[in-house]
């Protein structure tokens, strides 16, 4: 499926909703909801509540995260917020502050 790419250098303040995959390399402030995979790349800044099918975070995320399947915080990720998903992994080197709820 085609994907939406929020490239490095762009700032979006507002709400993003999509049925596709989303890759965020830039800055998003507000709200992000996708039906499929959400990837927050290293260097990205997300200050928003994020919902998606699945979520991979390598950048900075401040907000609550809800994923249907899984949330993976990779090394280098900085996440402040609550995470709710069926499966959650937090890699060595990821920074995380918040609650984890795996009771979906």
């Amino acid at each position, binding site marked *: 499926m085609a994907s*939406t790419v929020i490239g490095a250098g762009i700032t*979006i303040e*507002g709400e993003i909703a999509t049925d596709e995959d989303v890759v965020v390399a830039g800055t998003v402030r507000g709200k992000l909801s996708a039906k499929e995979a959400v990837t927050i790349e290293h260097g990205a800044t997300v200050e928003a509540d994020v919902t998606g099918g699945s979520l991979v975070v390598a950048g900075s995320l401040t907000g609550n995260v809800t994923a249907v399947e899984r949330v993976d915080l990779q090394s280098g990720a900085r996440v402040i917020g609550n995470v709710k998903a069926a499966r959650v992994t937090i890699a060595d080197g990821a920074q995380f502050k918040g609650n984890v709820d795996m009771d979906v």
Partner: protein
Amino acid sequence: MAANATVIGRTTRVRGRLSGDVDLKIEGFVEGEIAVTGNVTVDAHGMVGANVQGRRLTVRGAIRGDLVGAEAVVLEEGARVVGDVRAPRIAIAQGALMRGLVQTADDGAARAPAVRAQQVAKPAAATSRAAAAPPARAHAPANAAAPAKPPGAALPAPPSPHRGNSSGARRPPPPIVPALKKMKGQLLKKREH
């Protein structure tokens, strides 16, 4: 497209402000404001309810909003635009439709249209007096709904015929309304005494 390209996919809907030093390709729906320094392409499926500022704007979809290109605005076949279009160079292909003002540079009597997008941030204060249309974002502190944006970012000052003047004649920034009110109160108090 540049490596920095942002793509708003076909099923994606964005409501808000898009800004940055990037190229932008819109295949989905965007409502709000778009002010980037790169090229903007709205493809045949794209729908934009926003003023758009960029370097070169290429439109094949539908737009309700004003288009300001620092370099050019090109409406290709299939474009449907309701709004004003300003750029040094403007092309409208057979099969493109629009309703609004069109202004290229150097047509003799007309004022110079919008300059480089990077200069947008500077005349924002000056044009806020001149522009009658959406001045809300120029008074950022007063507008509680607008997310606070650092002044360094490109502000999409509404395209207005006065922009050509603002770069030459630097108007003083608009008076700060709360301060005036305060002074007025003090003046009244003085008179009473």
